[in-house]
């Protein structure tokens, strides 16, 4: 059995940030990712980030990814790619398949930074080719530079739906409409305005009813919803499209946390069942930490800060940082998290996170 001090599952923004923070303090870090390249979803983010300068505002996600990778390489983190963590067992041991070999890695501390999966919606015709998730479209358009189709109907007006719609326009596709089941737009006004300036209608209290076509999507039927989310007969509209994109939010990828025996709480504002954790990002299982979307769906910028918190906390717990040094570092990160969790959108997440922390502390 191989051993390491700190094993991190997932090399997205949270995992990378945790690895850098811990390795800089002197911790032996093994960063594991199932993809052939680290960075998680960062390399799909071709838009500029918001926030203050410390939050990489004005920098594109891909450039942040490149920067984090460079730092990981220079601070001596062991990076295991094409490595699938298939189980977590007693004594902080991970089952990993790497290079077609099954190996066990025992770690003093483990960070689960596994991210999230996209939510689906089942409607007649949703299995037709041409119905796809926003993540798949970002991979096609932003990484492989391939258009998924010519005319797109976007379902969901959260930030992902709005940003991906805009990226589709930039790539040369037509976005016929953005649907939103709620009575108001889900994402930031600044993203919605960009679409509106391009003449893309954002239809609130409207959802997808059906996808039609022979062997592939040819037509989408939409329908209006009343204040109780009931369909209003007679409000159906047909759109000739070849792509229906689903941008309906994310669910934490928390299988490993369940398997490890972590306690969960159901917090819809954070994406569903969330592993209860404290301000150090430690779960209810000693030595197992969470950061990023698996600890509650937020953004890449908050994921990076949470990763740093976990990295600092682990370095402290392993004796590489004194309590005073760690407290000082954490304070800086917590202040930045507070800034990121302000305003009408962030405020809701801040409250939800505090609810989780209180549960962990009351135990």
């Amino acid at each position, binding site marked *: *059995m191989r051993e390491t001090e700190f094993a991190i599952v997932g090399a997205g923004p949270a995992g990378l940030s945790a690895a850098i923070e811990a390795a800089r303090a002197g911790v032996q870090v093994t960063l594991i990712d199932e993809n052939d390249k680290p960075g998680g979803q960062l390399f799909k983010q071709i838009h500029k980030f918001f926030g203050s300068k410390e939050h990489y505002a004005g920098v594109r996600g891909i450039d942040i990814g490149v920067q984090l990778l460079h730092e990981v390489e220079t601070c001596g983190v062991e990076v295991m790619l094409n490595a699938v963590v298939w189980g977590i*067992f007693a004594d902080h041991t991970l089952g990993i398949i790497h290079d*077609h070999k*099954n190996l066990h890695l025992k770690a003093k501390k483990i960070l689960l930074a596994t991210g999230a*999966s996209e939510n689906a919606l089942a409607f*007649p015709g949703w299995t037709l080719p041409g119905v796809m998730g926003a993540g798949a479209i970002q991979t096609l358009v932003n990484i492989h530079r391939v258009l998924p189709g010519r005319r797109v109907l976007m379902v969901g007006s959260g930030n992902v739906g709005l940003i991906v719609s805009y990226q589709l326009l930039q790539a040369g596709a037509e976005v016929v409409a953005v649907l939103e089941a709620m009575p108001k737009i889900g994402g930031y006004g600044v993203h919605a305005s960009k679409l509106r300036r391009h003449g893309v209608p954002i239809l609130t209290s409207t959802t997808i009813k059906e996808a039609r076509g022979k062997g592939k999507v040819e037509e989408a039927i939409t329908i209006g919803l009343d204040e109780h989310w009931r369909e209003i007969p007679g409000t159906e509209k047909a759109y000739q499209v070849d792509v229906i994109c689903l941008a309906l939010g994310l669910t934490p990828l928390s299988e490993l946390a369940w398997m490890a025996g972590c306690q969960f709480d159901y917090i819809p504002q954070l994406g569903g069942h969330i592993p209860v954790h404290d301000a150090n990002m430690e779960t209810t299982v000693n030595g197992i930490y969470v950061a990023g979307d698996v600890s509650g769906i937020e953004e890449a910028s908050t994921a990076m800060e949470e990763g740093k918190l976990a990295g600092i906390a682990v370095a402290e717990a392993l004796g590489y940082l004194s309590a005073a040094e760690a407290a000082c570092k954490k304070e800086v990160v917590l202040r930045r998290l507070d800034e990121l969790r302000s305003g009408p959108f962030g405020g809701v997440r801040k409250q939800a996170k505090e609810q989780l922390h209180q549960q962990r502390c009351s135990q």
Partner: protein
Amino acid sequence: MSPEPEDEVIICRCEEVSRKEILEAIAEGARTVNEVKMRTRAGMGLCQGKTCRRLVSRILAEQTGQPMGEIAPATFRPPVRPVPIGVLASKDDEGQSDAS
């Protein structure tokens, strides 16, 4: 093309389980995601429920009146990712096998 009836809609794509089959399982008494899974195989395919688990929870909530928060996901067991069984069964660097 004539529209697909709502109940014929596939919920679990990996195992091709329709909404109708899930409704039947609930009518027969299934009250948890695990019970629906054991009756229908929904969530037992290649993606291990990553796409359908939330859809199944939603149908359970709507049919039984339980709030979403009280519907726990199915039990997760290793392997949580599709992995070649030959690799799992092979001996690791210390001569141990996880399939034994």
